[in-house]
Structures are given as structure tokens and as C-alpha cells.
């Protein structure tokens, strides 16, 4: 009986080895586990239940053999389960595979107007240099727009062919300079401001002109402010805005509100000074006007011209955007064609 019992264990073992090889999925695995190890009816369980029928002398040997077979079956099933469940998980993941080359589901995002962006960029550069942004009315008195800037009543700049008049002494401001005067009237030096905003000139619209455009002007008045400071400030600004390799050149010019005055040229952003159509082969592009504040202007706001000096400058926001992004036509900024706006 005993050797017979062990023999039966061996044949169960052989049978298990054969069947185990055929198990291909987790369900078949569960079947085979039940068939051999089920607590009630498993083939091996049944054998173990026979233990009490085995003579005492042989029990130990039988028990040992039975536990060995059980251990072997259990570990074989464990291995098999690990392998099969891995396969199934992979298969499940595989079934969820996406064509990730399809386009993403993008929500519509709006675009900030290019002039808002450039204005912001310029403001940030100057605020970082200690400037305060100031604002003022666009409908402005001729006093602030002209007189206080040393543009007397007979000056050609006041001609109604260039300036929009609301009444004889009220105009649409032709520059944001009136804000400088208003600010200086309000506060004592040091004054460090930039004034962005809309300005108006009676120019017919073409690729480089519109009757309304945006300016940013700057003013720095303090003790001992020099022409070198003007140069250094605008050199730094242009490097910040256009890149470190940008060079700035100053040429003598004339504006009623500054003296000395300087036209500011920029090393051509399109050809890197090698000469192109945009810079007319000169390597330089005229970008802004600047100068040391005319003492007459400081006199208008009752600053002590012996104590204080300052510089001022003014640029067109559209022009700076055009230069930086290569926009060919200023009118694009006002047409609001979405195909233009969405590029920014």
C-alpha cells in the first residue's frame, strides 16, 4: 500500500507535469490548480486524506513525498501564474494602445495683440532700470503738446495739415511728450518716466504711416545727468530688446525740446550691418529721436536748470515691432486679420 501510495503520488506528479505544459491562460491555470489542490476534491488533497490509512511506519515517508509533490506543484503554478498574468497585463495594455501621432486636442487660446506685447516688453526693460510708467490724456491742450515743449505758435509742426485740431487750443496729441510736462509739473526730480500711448498725425495711411500710432517716450531728469547717460541708457535698451550684439549710433539732429539732439540708429537687424534693402545698404536703421532736455523746457516746469539736467527719447511701438518681427506693413496692426494676430 505504502509503495503503492508513493507510486500514485508519482503518477499524479507526472500527470501534472503533462497538463501544466498545456496551460495557456489564467483560466486554465485556475482549473488546474483546482484539479490538483482544491481543498475538497483536488487530486493531491485526496491522496493526503489517505494518510491515515497508511501504516504508521510508512507515514513519514509518504508524508514527505506528498509534501514534496505539493510543494513542487505549488511553485510550478506560482511561476506559471506570474508568467501568464504578465502576458495578460501586457495584452490588456496593448489593446489600449493609441495612435499617438494623431494631433493633440487643443483648446482655443487667444493671442495678445502684438502692440500690447511689445509695449509690455519695452515697459519691463525700463521699469527694471527704475522708470515709472506714466499716462496722460490724448485730447490735449496746445500748451502741453506744443508751447511747453518749446514749439511756439508759429512753428510749422503746429500746422493743421499735420495735426488734428479739436478747437484752436485743443489737439489730439502728436506725441506723448505732454505727459512729460504734466509729470514734471507734478513732481520734483529725480524724474524717471516712460510714457506709452496713442498719438495722432494727419498722415495718409500707407505701408509705413497711419494717422494714429503708438509711442513710448522716456524722460530722466536728475542732478548731473549727462549726454553719456543718454547714450548708455539707449545702448542698453537696444541690446535688451534686439539682442546683445545690437549696436547703437547717435547722430546730431534737431528737435525743439532737446539740445543737443540725436537721431538714434540701430545696426541693421536684417543684415547685421552687411548692407541690405531695408537699411539702404548703409548697415544702419534710424529708429528714434533723443536728446538732452532743452533748458527752456525745464524752465517751463520751473526746474532749476543750473542744478538739474536730463535726457529724453521717443520711439514708435509699431516701428519697433516691425523691426523685430519683419512686419512689412504698419496697417496690419489695425486690420485685425486673425491670420496676422494668431502669429503672436
Amino acid at each position, binding site marked *: 500500500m505504502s509503495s503503492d501510495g508513493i507510486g500514485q503520488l508519482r503518477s499524479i506528479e507526472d500527470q501534472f507535469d503533462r497538463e501544466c505544459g498545456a496551460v495557456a491562460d489564467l483560466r486554465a491555470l485556475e482549473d488546474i490548480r483546482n484539479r490538483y489542490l482544491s481543498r475538497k476534491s483536488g487530486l493531491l488533497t485526496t491522496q493526503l486524506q489517505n494518510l491515515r490509512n497508511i501504516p504508521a511506519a510508512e507515514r513519514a515517508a509518504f508524508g514527505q513525498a506528498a509534501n514534496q509533490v505539493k510543494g513542487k506543484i505549488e511553485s510550478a503554478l506560482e511561476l506559471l501564474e506570474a508568467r501568464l498574468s504578465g502576458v495578460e497585463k501586457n495584452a490588456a495594455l496593448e489593446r489600449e494602445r493609441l495612435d499617438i501621432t494623431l494631433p493633440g486636442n487643443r483648446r482655443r487660446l487667444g493671442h495678445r495683440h502684438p502692440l500690447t506685447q511689445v509695449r509690455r516688453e519695452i515697459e519691463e526693460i525700463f521699469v527694471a*532700470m527704475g*522708470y515709472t510708467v506714466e499716462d496722460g490724456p490724448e485730447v490735449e491742450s496746445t500748451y502741453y503738446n506744443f508751447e511747453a515743449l518749446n514749439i511756439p505758435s508759429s512753428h510749422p509742426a503746429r500746422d493743421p495739415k499735420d495735426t488734428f485740431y*479739436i478747437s484752436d487750443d485743443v489737439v489730439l496729441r502728436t506725441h506723448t511728450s505732454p505727459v512729460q510736462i504734466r509729470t514734471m509739473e507734478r513732481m520734483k526730480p529725480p524724474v524717471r518716466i516712460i510714457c506709452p500711448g496713442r498719438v495722432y498725425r494727419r498722415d495718409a495711411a500707407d505701408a509705413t504711416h497711419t494717422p494714429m500710432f503708438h509711442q513710448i517716450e522716456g524722460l530722466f531728469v536728475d542732478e548731473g545727468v549727462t549726454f*553719456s547717460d543718454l*547714450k548708455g541708457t539707449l545702448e*542698453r535698451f537696444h541690446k535688451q530688446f534686439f539682442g546683445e550684439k545690437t549696436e547703437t549710433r547717435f*547722430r546730431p539732429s534737431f528737435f525743439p525740446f532737446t539740445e543737443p539732439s540725436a537721431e538714434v540708429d540701430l545696426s541693421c537687424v536684417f543684415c547685421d550691418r552687411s548692407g541690405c534693402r531695408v537699411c539702404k545698404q548703409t548697415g544702419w536703421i534710424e529708429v528714434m529721436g533723443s536728446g538732452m532736455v532743452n533748458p527752456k523746457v525745464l524752465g517751463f516746469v520751473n526746474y532749476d536748470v543750473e542744478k538739474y*539736467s536730463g535726457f529724453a527719447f521717443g520711439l514708435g511701438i509699431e516701428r519697433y515691432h516691425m523691426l523685430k518681427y519683419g512686419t512689412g506693413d504698419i496697417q496690419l496692426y489695425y486690420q485685425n*486679420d486673425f491670420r496676422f494676430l494668431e502669429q503672436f
Partner: protein
Amino acid sequence: MKISLSWLKEFVDIPVDAQELGKKVTSIGLAVESVEPHGNDTVFELDVTTNRPDCLNHLGVAREVGAIFGTPIRSPQFKLRESTAKTSDAISVSIADPDLCGRYCGRFISGVKIGPSPDWLKQRLESVGIRSINNVADVTNYVLMELGQPLHAFDAESLHGHEIIVRRAEIGERITTLDGIERTLTPSTLVIADAQRAVALAGIMGGAETEISGKTTNVFLESAHFAPQSIRKTARSLGMNTEASYRFERGADIRMAQTACDRAATMIQELAGGEIHHGMIDVFPGKTAPVRVSLRRIRIESFLGSAVEDSVVDGIFQRLEFKFAKTSSGWDVEVPSFRVDVSVEQDLLEEIARLYGYDRFPGTLPSWRGYGSFLPGDAGERQLRDLLSNSGYSEITTYSFSDEETERRFRPDIDPVKFQNPMTEDAAILRSSLVPGILKSLHWNLNRGIHDIQFYELSKVYRKSGENRALILAATGALRTQSLHDTPRDFTFFDLKGDIENILESIGALSKLSELSTERIPPYYHPGRSARFGELAVFGEIHPEQLEALKIRQRVFLAEINVEALLSKTSMKSVQAIPRFPAIRRDFSFVLDKGTQYVAVQRMIADVGIPELTRIEPFDRMESGPFADTKYSLSLSVVYQSADRTLTDTEVEGFDRKILDILEQRLGAQLRK
């Protein structure tokens, strides 16, 4: 201003070629616009700034060139040969208004023969853009271009009474000028008159009746100086701009009048013969002492940024023909009469900067005290722009201009800011609303095949009473188009309403101030699809009739937001504790009478007074179904939550009961079966 290189070389030696000269001249402030060959000559187009009338002639430019290279200037050499006949016997000159005419020089030349100019003269004038007329007229133009002094030659025989009077015109006095136009004058105009009538507009243009003609034998030559403001005013009021007025209104050299007069008389005699009568007429009431200005040495460094050696400064003044005396602190300078732009110390500093070279002053960054900052409303506007971008709206920028008719469609009560001199009829006022501009931008895009649009503009509107910031939103077409991931859907009223609610909430203004109503909705909105949030926003679908007028064939949604009021509402937020006990959500479907607004249901539930009620949210609405045609079904969920305990089933059922009861009693609501 055209400058001939060969002409220039008569007055100064130039050690460089034309291109290099162009660069040098530009670098000291005479911007060279172009350098063009002209026959054997080279012609520069100079952009002479308005403060430098002394450079509107060849001698003046030569002076600048000499200052650049340190080369001496050769003034034009000529020898005047006068006859024994006396000028004073032929003509006399008086100035009635010396404030407008500071100097009047004159020469009388008799027996001239008018004829064509020699070729060299014709060519020279042509090179600087002046057409040859006859030998006498050409000489006056030549001297103008050479020395900058405007001259006028009269046919002396046609002057009445052997006298010239410089006076203001009489009221209604008439003159036909050389261009053939008869002009009626006012006393603000200065004229040159003979004994009987005006014969020239002083400093602007001569009269036709006294013009040099082929028959002229006697010439009276005028070389005068007129007050800039008077010439400017007259030229502008008459719409005239001549070579003479251009120079006088900027300021001519009062001391050049005499030299130019003699120079021209000599040339006329050489080219047209005749005799120059003895003695020059020179009435000079405007004679003044030269302008003197001091320059302090210390100011060069403290104003320009670096010191310049005394010897360099001396050299600059010498080359500019500024006489000076050295003092212990600097220089006392006598400004030559041709430099009308120099009168204070800063003017001298400018001369030093420009001739020493702007590029020789190093760039430095100024030190500063204090702090920088953006505009007061900037942070709020930036937050708004971020939110709008993230909500799909793109920013536009439109002109501030509008026209009254368009504007009144949207703002019937406006008192617009009108221009005296609009460029076009449709841009004659400043806008009082952002509506027309944004609709125009939609129209532009719709016409170009772009149908799905969300735009906003954050900018100014204008009234006589002032300027205000304003915000407008517009949307049309699809919110989502057909894609792999989503079904298409049009933008709706509730998309817009949601966007505005987001804006109000983000600013912290979604409160009593923004209570929803349908009062005072402008007529260009769809009456059934528009509303307002208090004084903060008006919004809705545009009235179909408006769209028809604009030829827009799809629904357009618009929101006008009072951005100044909105941003002034910004408040500090404080954090709410996260609830520790679970929330319980209950869903109900009610059948209600059609016409019962959601807000009524919402208020009713809120008014029950359940402190644990934290949220009411509708999630479905059916217009028809297993209920009467006069009813509709509304499904909503309510959420209960207590801050201090877990709610029991009994409590929750009690809450439900209260809600169901009140809705049944007050609104006749039934639970849908």
C-alpha cells in the same frame, strides 16, 4: 537742399571723396539723404534741420565742411564797379514797420540787357534743381544758393514814384504775384510797395507787374531781412512756400544782405551789362550787438559726460567762426550773425558735442534712487488679458476714429469729440464706443473666410467730458469645430455669460454689484438674449436687424464691460477651510410651468434656509417629454455639507422634503416620475 560738390569746392578744399564726405557731413548733423552724379558733378541731397538755415546755401555748408576737416574757407571774391550816377537819385527806400523788416539793402543797375544766361550758370542752377529764367533772375537765384540771401530784382521802370516803402498791406489790398495768382491781403501781411501799390509780398514772392521782362533796362535789386514769424504766418495763410520764404521763416543772416546785394549787382553787370549806380541803399533799423554766450569748462564734463581738451574746444570755435576770449572758467563767445540757433550755453555744448563727435562720448548708465513701477491699473489689466487669452479671445487694436452716424447707432446720446480738420468723413470724431470697431474687425475676417472668432479690445473711449478705459468682447461662429476628439459646437449666449462670470469672479466682483438684470439693455441687443451684470457688464446676442445692416450672416455675441469700475472692485481674498466632512449630493427632476425661470427655482431653494445647503446646480432641461405641453422638466442637483459633522440620512431626507414642499407650494413643481 541740394548741394553741388563742384560749387562747394569753390569755397573749401575737401580731402576725401564724395561718399566719405557724405558720411562725415551726416555725422555732424547735416543728414545726407542721397549722393547722385550730375554730369561731371556730384549732387548731395541734404536734410537740413529747421534750426540751421545757415546751411541752406553752399557757403554755409562749406563752413561746416571746413569745420570737419580744419580746412580754411574761401569767401566768393568779386570787385564791385560803381558808376558816377547816384543810387539815391534813382530811388529811395523807407521802412514803415521796422519790427517786421530789420534791414533793406538795394542797388540800382541801369542799362541792362536781359537775355539768356551762359551755360555754366544754367547748368549750375539746374544741378541744384532750379530752372533758368533769364540772366538777371538767374543771378538772384545763384546768389541765393551761394550765400543764402533771398534777393528780388524789380523792373525799375514799372515802379511808380521812384520809391520803395516796406509796409503792412491795407485791408483788401490786392496783388498779382509772379505765379499769376491775384491775392487779397490783410494788414498782417508785409508788402514791398511803390508810391502807389504793393509790388511784392515781402520775403515770399514778387509781383507780376514789376517782373523783369525782355524789355527791362533798369533793375532795382532788393536784398533785405524780414522777421521769421511774420513771413511764416503770411506764407502759411496764403498757402505759399518759396525758396525765399523757406529761408526767411527759419532766419536769414542779417549781415549777409549787404554782401549778397553787391555780389549780385556785380554778377548782373558781368552778365547783362549796364552800370551799377553809386552807393548802396542800406536801411538797417534792426542793427543789434552780436550775441554773446559764456561756456563754463566744467559743464562740458558735467553735461556731456567727458571732458574735452581746451585746445580742441578752441579749434572748434575757430572753425565755426565763433570769436572767443578765454576766461578762468571757460570761454566768452561771440556768435556770428548767421548762427541764429545759438543763444545759450547749452547751444555751445551742442556745437562741441557734434564737432568733437557724438561717438567719442562713452555710453554710461546713470545711477538712480527710488523704484520703478507700472501704471496703477496695469496688474489688473494684465490679469484680465491673461484670462481672456486663456478663454480663447484674441486682442485687437482699432483706430480711435469714428463718424457720427455710425457712433449714434450705438451711442445715441453722445456728445462726440469732433475734429476741426478731419482727414476723411468716416474719421471725423473720436469714438465713444468700442462696438463699431470690433464689429468692423469681425466683418473684415468674415469676408476673408474666417468664421469662428473670439475677439476683445481693451482700450480707450472718448467723450467731451474725458477719456475712459473700456473692454469689449465679441464672439461668433463655432466654439469647437469638428475634430477627432470633439463634436462641433457653436458659441452660445451661455458661453459668453460664463466667460463674463469668470472675469467677474477672477476680479472678485461676482457679488451684489453684478446682479443680473434685463434693465436698460441697449437696443442693438437681441431683446430675449441679452442681460446685464449690474453696472459692470452688458452682454448678449446682437439684434438680427443690426447684423443684417452690417451684412453679417451669423450670430454675433457681444459684451461691453466697464473695466474701470471692474478693476476698482478688486478685493483681497481670504482662504476658506477645506471641509472635513463628506458632501451629499441629491439629484431631482422637476416638472415646471413653461416660463418659470431658473432663478425663481434657485431663489426658492435658497430661501428655504438650510445652512448645510452649499450648492445648487442645474444639469438638464427638457422642453418636451412625459408631461403636458405647458410644462418643462428641469433636473438639478443640490449638495449638502456640514462643517462640523457627517449628515445623517434622516437629516438629508428632511432637507429634501423641505425643498420639494416649497417648490410644490410656490411654483407647482412636481417631481418627474
